[in-house]
């Protein structure tokens, strides 16, 4: 804030140390969970988690006896399916919002914003009834549909903001060269906002991967995503904290890594609208 260059000791006291404290608060629980997951179950309650006799026993048990690999596969199918549905339906819609003016544009755009704010509990009950009638309970499709209720409006908003960043004159140039609208979209606009599309896709993937309540309600014996699987470890095996925390680490890993990979672009897309507004 202040422009004067402050001396290093003072900076350490007023910036570095408070920042470290906040980071400790932020990462502490996560590190504690990791530490628990590499401790031996037998010594966990007598000596507490410790790093000195680290073991991967919990992780091997997770895949060998609990069948975590199947759950990972279920999560992967659901999350990827949601990404495909979310992105493919919203590309043309975002282009229309970004490039045309038409009657009802404002209402339609706000409508997509409004959908994102409906309480999940309002949708989860009818979706359950609907899936039961259609015989889709306990299938990947049911979860993909449920996750799409959030993914479609979200990706429309994100992509509109990325497409607005690409000058219209490029589409027009393409169309003077004989492209149709759709060709201009496919050959000019899409390649240019590919980084934005990838970031949006990854965000959808993360939210679907992390989703729990739909997975719990609409899933079942056949389709059990990682989040539900982690939670059921409590019921089936008393509370084995070593196993449970190992499951937590494995379940959280893909999303965390992806998030760190795209955080910069994603945050610029997410905050753009808010800062302007």
């Amino acid at each position, binding site marked *: 804030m*202040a*422009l004067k260059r402050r001396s290093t000791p003072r900076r350490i006291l007023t910036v570095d140390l408070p920042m470290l404290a906040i980071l400790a608060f932020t990462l502490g629980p996560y590190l504690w969970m990791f530490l628990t997951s590499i401790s031996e179950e037998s010594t966990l309650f007598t000596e507490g988690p410790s790093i000195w006799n680290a073991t991967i026993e919990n992780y091997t048990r997770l895949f060998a006896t609990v069948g975590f690999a199947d759950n990972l596969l279920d999560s992967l199918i659901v999350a990827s399916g949601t990404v495909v549905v979310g992105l493919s339906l919203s590309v043309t819609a975002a282009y229309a919002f970004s490039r045309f*003016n038409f009657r009802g544009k404002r209402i339609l755009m706000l409508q997509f914003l409004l959908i994102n704010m409906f309480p999940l509990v309002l949708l989860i009950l009818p979706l359950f009834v609907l899936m039961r009638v259609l015989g889709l309970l306990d299938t990947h499709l049911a979860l993909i549909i449920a996750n*799409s209720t959030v993914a479609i409006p979200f990706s429309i908003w994100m992509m509109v903001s990325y497409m607005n960043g690409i000058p219209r004159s490029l589409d027009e140039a393409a169309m003077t060269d004989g492209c149709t609208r759709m060709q201009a979209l496919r050959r000019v606009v899409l390649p240019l906002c590919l980084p934005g599309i990838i970031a949006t896709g990854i965000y959808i993937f993360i939210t679907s991967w992390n989703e729990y309540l739909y997975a719990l309600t609409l899933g079942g014996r056949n389709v059990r995503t990682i989040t539900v699987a982690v939670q059921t470890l409590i019921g089936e095996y008393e509370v084995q904290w070593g196993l*449970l925390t190992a499951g937590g680490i494995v379940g959280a890993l893909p999303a965390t890594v992806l998030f760190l990979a795209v955080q910069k672009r994603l945050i610029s897309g997410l905050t753009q609208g808010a800062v302007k507004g």
Partner: protein
Amino acid sequence: MTDATMPHAQTQAAPPRRALARRVLPYAMLSPAVLVTLAIVFFPMVQTAWMSLHDYVLFRPNTFDWVGLKNFRTALQDEVLWISLWHTVIWMCTTIPAQLLLGLVTALLLNQDFPWRPVARALIIIPWALPSVVIALMWVWIYDSNYGVANEFLLRLGLIQKAIPWLANPDTALAAIILTLTWQGFPFFAVMILAGLQSIPRSYYEAASIDGASPWRQFWHITLPGISGVMVTAVLLRTIWVANSFDVIFVMTGGGPGYATYTLPLFAFVKARTNLDFGYGSAIAVLFTLLLMLVVVVYLKRTGKAVS
């Protein structure tokens, strides 16, 4: 953001058939997304409202009797509804300000110059990326009455005399969950506010320090007005999200002990899930949505201005 002049100028010159095609094109491009959301969002939503007017219990699938507003009347006389509403209010009025404050401090720190800033900025958002189930279980383990690190930490510091069963004690359960939710949500505020801070021109601060304004006065007169817009947006968005998400509570306590951590969306969900009373659950969900719409309307008004 958008301009209408270009397509219109062309419409006049183009032959009528192409003009029609051009007018239909945006709607054609929108239709897949609109039709699908109609089917998977609006139709179910109307169905909830419809179910809330019926006696509909899932283990008696053949009875779907019209009862009018009976479910709503029962709900309003239900003591648990008022307990849940009260908790929802406490929960919102503590979680959001705590997240905002911690987020603001974090953003101000991240806006300073220090060597490991990019690392700090990347790590601070980790809670945001974690699945809420994992967050909930992680904190259940931290709060564990026998082996939890929270008790051990506080005992060592001498702040408490004996271990406290944080989640099993009705007096501390809600507070413990609020701390967890604060932890989960403050990075969102930090990131939003940081973006706001970076949009304030540096020249404002230069001018102010030439005029001899103290750092505190600079904060009060330049920084705060500069980020107030972002903060309001962030608070509204977060209010909506926090109100909607009850998965962390559901996993941590399931609403208990007793009704100590019941909130409205959780109440609706539990009613439908454990009692299979979809009519009643829908009625509570509808009531909750109506309340939430008050916040949503404010947010939409702000965004609506930005869109046009």
